[in-house]
């Protein structure tokens, strides 16, 4: 089993490292901390290579370790808030967000016909659809960084509002605004790039 792990080429490890860094940077304001965490996660994965089995996809395996490292880091930060963290709120009044909302809602605040949410397929199928997760990654990376970060802290790492607010020095209402904007953009992107594209494919 260790041999399987070692057969992964340097190029593949390099690509994986880049994906891990992008994912981690999305959730941490600090690039140095992101580099450290990715390094630790990769080292941890190599150390435990013996328990890596063929069934576990390499990327899933390494990312599972990475998620735990990020969670630990964010929880530590929650206990010892960093004074030098930026108040993300200066990004709350993004003019891009207003422009985006104007594309979805008319001047009375109702959905435009072509922006109105459509029915999605069932959740079980989506979970196991690799194509869906590729689209998801792309859509997530396309969010304004502060929106992507709070969305993943909330939904993926499952920190609660208080923990996120303390870690990022955010007020609760600003957190709610960022989460709302993230959800609005993400579901729109998923519908355009996955649901509607899927209808065209079939």
């Amino acid at each position, binding site marked *: 089993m260790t041999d399987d792990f070692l057969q992964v080429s340097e190029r593949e490890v390099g690509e994986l490292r880049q994906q891990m860094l992008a994912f981690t940077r999305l959730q941490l304001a600090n690039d140095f901390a992101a580099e450290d965490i990715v390094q630790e996660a990769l080292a*941890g994965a190599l150390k*435990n290579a013996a*328990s890596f*089995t063929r069934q*576990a996809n390499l990327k*899933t*395996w390494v*990312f*599972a*370790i990475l*998620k*735990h490292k990020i969670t630990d880091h964010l929880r530590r930060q929650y206990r010892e808030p960093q004074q030098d963290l930026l108040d993300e709120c200066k990004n709350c009044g993004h003019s891009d967000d207003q422009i985006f*909302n104007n594309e979805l*809602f008319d001047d*009375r*605040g*109702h*959905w435009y016909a072509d922006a*109105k*949410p*459509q*029915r*999605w397929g069932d*959740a079980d199928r*989506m*979970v196991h659809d690799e194509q869906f*997760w590729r689209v998801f990654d792309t859509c997530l990376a396309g969010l304004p960084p502060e929106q992507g970060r709070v969305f993943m802290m*909330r*939904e*993926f790492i*499952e920190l609660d*509002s208080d923990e996120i607010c303390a870690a990022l020095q955010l007020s609760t209402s600003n*957190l*709610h605004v960022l*989460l*709302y904007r993230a*959800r*609005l953009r*993400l*579901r729109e992107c*998923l*519908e355009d790039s996955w649901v509607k594209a899927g209808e065209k494919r079939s």
Partner: protein
Amino acid sequence: MMNCEQATQLLSVGMERKLKLKEQAELKMHLLICSGCRQFGQQVQQLRTIIRATKDSSDKPEEKK
């Protein structure tokens, strides 16, 4: 009368805190007549469910011996 922009905001906030009775009532009224917002509400819940489902299946790698 609540519009779609306000309804979607409440649907999102409702995933973070319990809505006040007045908010719940107005939102319910809006959802009765708006299929777009009903879909929005289902989709954001669906995203939460599937993201957590992937996490559960790949959780605690260190224990996989």
